[in-house]
């Protein structure tokens, strides 16, 4: 057990800082997107981004090191430098391809996904089949050297700005529910695809409906074999869940919540001075820190080839519980501002309460996105606790 920054880490932090001083921010004037892409390329070359991904596919292939990862995070955040591309392609697809993709698929898709050139949407949920993926009805038929796809997907984040989609479709209507599903890749920019943004209750519209009307994709744009889509998609989920994003999200929001408590009033004084609010904050911090150190333990054990036990399966549910707790406290601190939200504005308002008003309305969706909490509980009960099937 050693979480200390030894002297080598001091040198490492200096190295990261020096790199950033030299490379970020770029000089003004040039094309911003190109600058960011170039910066990411350099940072990856130096081993600061995509550390778990092989070099041959555009990663930096570094040994797992929690402290180095933390130093990178801290130093990049300090100068607001771009980190890894935030996209379901990076978060889910790349891991899936690494495990299940063919060589040409890895070469063709992974490097440009990491660079941000290929932006992906995920096509899992369907109307009437939210958590129940096995009952999905979008189908693909093989016609010559193409898959021809018809049906509809929903809750696809940012599909309106994506180039490609990875999608679960039914390719064998005769097979049992789980067996007839395949995992296809698909170009969204074609006449057979229509995308409609869904307005959410918070006023944002990142989710989309995607309609397929004889959309096409080449027969070899399939990951795994036909009928293996269900299995392939669970690889994706595993990768999604083992990311450290949950604790980063929770830490950032917790810091904002503390800041908010400094500005908000409670019982006639700054909320941060109220013992009741201080306790509430500490209660939430107890959960955030439990998540942090359980994550450290998990990452360390995985790196050492040990089995970290059941925490991995809990992380999603745990994170969404924390979000609920923060949303409830944020709403209390918002006071009268809980009645206000400029739905047409996307900027953070001057009140600073919009984040909490929005989270209050959307933290329940965290329990739904990526598998409803009740489904998570089923999985925990069965796989982690070994309870008998219902």
């Amino acid at each position, binding site marked *: 057990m050693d979480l200390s920054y030894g002297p080598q880490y001091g040198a490492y932090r200096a190295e990261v800082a020096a790199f950033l001083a030299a490379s970020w921010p770029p000089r003004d004037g040039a094309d911003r997107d190109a600058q960011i892409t170039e910066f990411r390329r350099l940072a990856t070359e130096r081993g600061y981004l995509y550390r778990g991904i092989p070099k041959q596919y555009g990663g930096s292939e570094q040994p797992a090191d929690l402290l180095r990862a933390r130093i990178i995070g801290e130093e990049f955040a300090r100068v607001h430098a771009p980190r890894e591309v935030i996209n379901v392609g990076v978060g889910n697809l790349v891991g899936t391809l690494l495990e299940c993709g063919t060589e040409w698929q890895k070469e063709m898709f992974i490097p440009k996904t990491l660079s941000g050139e290929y932006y992906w949407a995920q096509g899992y*949920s369907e109307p*009437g*089949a*939210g*958590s*129940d993926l*096995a*009952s999905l009805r979008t189908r693909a038929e093989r016609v010559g050297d193409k898959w021809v796809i018809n049906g509809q997907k*929903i*809750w696809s984040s940012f599909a309106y700005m994506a180039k490609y989609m990875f999608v679960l479709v039914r390719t064998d209507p005769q097979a049992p529910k789980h067996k007839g599903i395949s995992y296809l890749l698909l170009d969204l920019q074609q006449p057979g695809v229509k995308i409609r943004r*869904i*307005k*959410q*209750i918070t006023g944002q519209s990142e*989710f989309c409906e995607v309609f397929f009307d004889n959309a096409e994709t080449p027969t070899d744009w399939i990951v795994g074999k036909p009928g293996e889509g269900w299995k392939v998609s669970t690889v994706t989920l595993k990768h999604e869940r083992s990311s450290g994003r949950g604790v980063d999200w929770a830490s950032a929001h917790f810091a904002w919540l503390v800041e908010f408590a400094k500005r908000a*009033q*409670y*019982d006639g004084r700054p909320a941060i001075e109220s013992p009741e609010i201080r306790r509430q904050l500490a209660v939430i911090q107890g959960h955030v820190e439990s998540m942090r150190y359980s994550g450290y333990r998990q990452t360390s054990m995985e790196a050492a080839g040990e089995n970290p036990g059941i925490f991995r399966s809990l992380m999603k549910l745990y994170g969404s519980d924390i979000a609920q707790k923060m949303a409830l406290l944020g*709403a*209390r601190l918002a*006071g*009268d501002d*809980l*009645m*206000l*939200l*400029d*739905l*047409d*504005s996307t900027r953070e308002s001057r009140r600073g309460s919009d984040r909490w*008003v929005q989270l*209050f*309305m*959307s933290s*329940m*969706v965290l*329990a*739904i996105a990526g598998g*409803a909490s*009740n489904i998570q*509980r089923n999985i925990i009960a069965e796989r982690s606790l070994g309870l008998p099937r219902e």
Partner: protein
Amino acid sequence: MNFLLSEEQKAMQEALARVLADRCDSRSLHAFIDAKGDLDTELWRLLADQGMAGIGVAEAHGGLGLGVVDLALASEMLGRAAAPVPLHGHWLAAHAIGQSTDAAQKARWLPDLASGRKIATIAFAEDGARWTPDAWTLEGGKSLSGVKRFAPCAASADIAVVGLKGGELAVVDLHGEGVRIEALAGIDRTRPMGDLHFDNVACERLAAPADAAEKTFNAGLAIIAADAFGGASRCLDMAVEYAKVREQFGRKIGGFQALRHQLANLANEVEPCRGMYWFGAYAQDSDPAQATHAASLAKAHVGQRYLEAARSALEYHGGIGFTWEYDSHIWLKRAMLDQSWLGNADAHYLRAADHAGW
């Protein structure tokens, strides 16, 4: 001695429910919301013709002469329907004016309010969640200068009853000079709110007893608790209905024990609020010693249950509940307004404690 509604009270609730079922269906609500409407004039007319604008106004001034219990029973129906009407502020303004000891003053304002020819609102809040009469700071000389916040349906109102320093009240003509109404980006578009900016505005002091503002404020708490119960019970009903029709994994989701128990817990939280808001309102009419305690406790308790019910119901709908096109968010946002308007649960639990005799 009984804790029952009279036949007249039941009939009023039913009549109101019928109009609202007809005029506040999902399509109309969404249309009002998306148009960012200030007032559904036709609906207002319909309700006013039913006497709803003057429930609490004395019969001598053209109202129905009923009490806070009746206002609350009507409010429950508004909450159930998420009705986009300015009645809450209107009722409270009339309640305040009705306490005037000056017959001429009442005769000047109340008939128009009872008939609905004029719409009234109340302006109690000041910045920093100063809701209670003892917290008001706006100086009230012959004219007013300053800001009052969160007046409901301010843009459609003709007059406002304004809270002044020392817990006094005044009537202000909102069409008068020096009045500016700042529309707020309110979360609940069925009850658009405004801040009132006064710059040397003429006002008419209410000739009311010293505790008039407190009484109107308490009546407001009971009425909002009633709206919250109506909304919460609607959220429960929506979630239960959805569970009966929605299928997943080849079965109705209402057959899954986990959801069944979540819905049972929700019912267990929501249903007992009915007796709570009834008593909160009853105490205003008939049990003055308990009026403040009962009003604050009902507002805090039922307001909290409404928030929980609205959030839970939305979650149990799955993704569709998060869409603007669906209905769930309309009640969630009303729950957020009901929670905060007139002071939130943290404030009112404490106020209840302070009047509990501990």
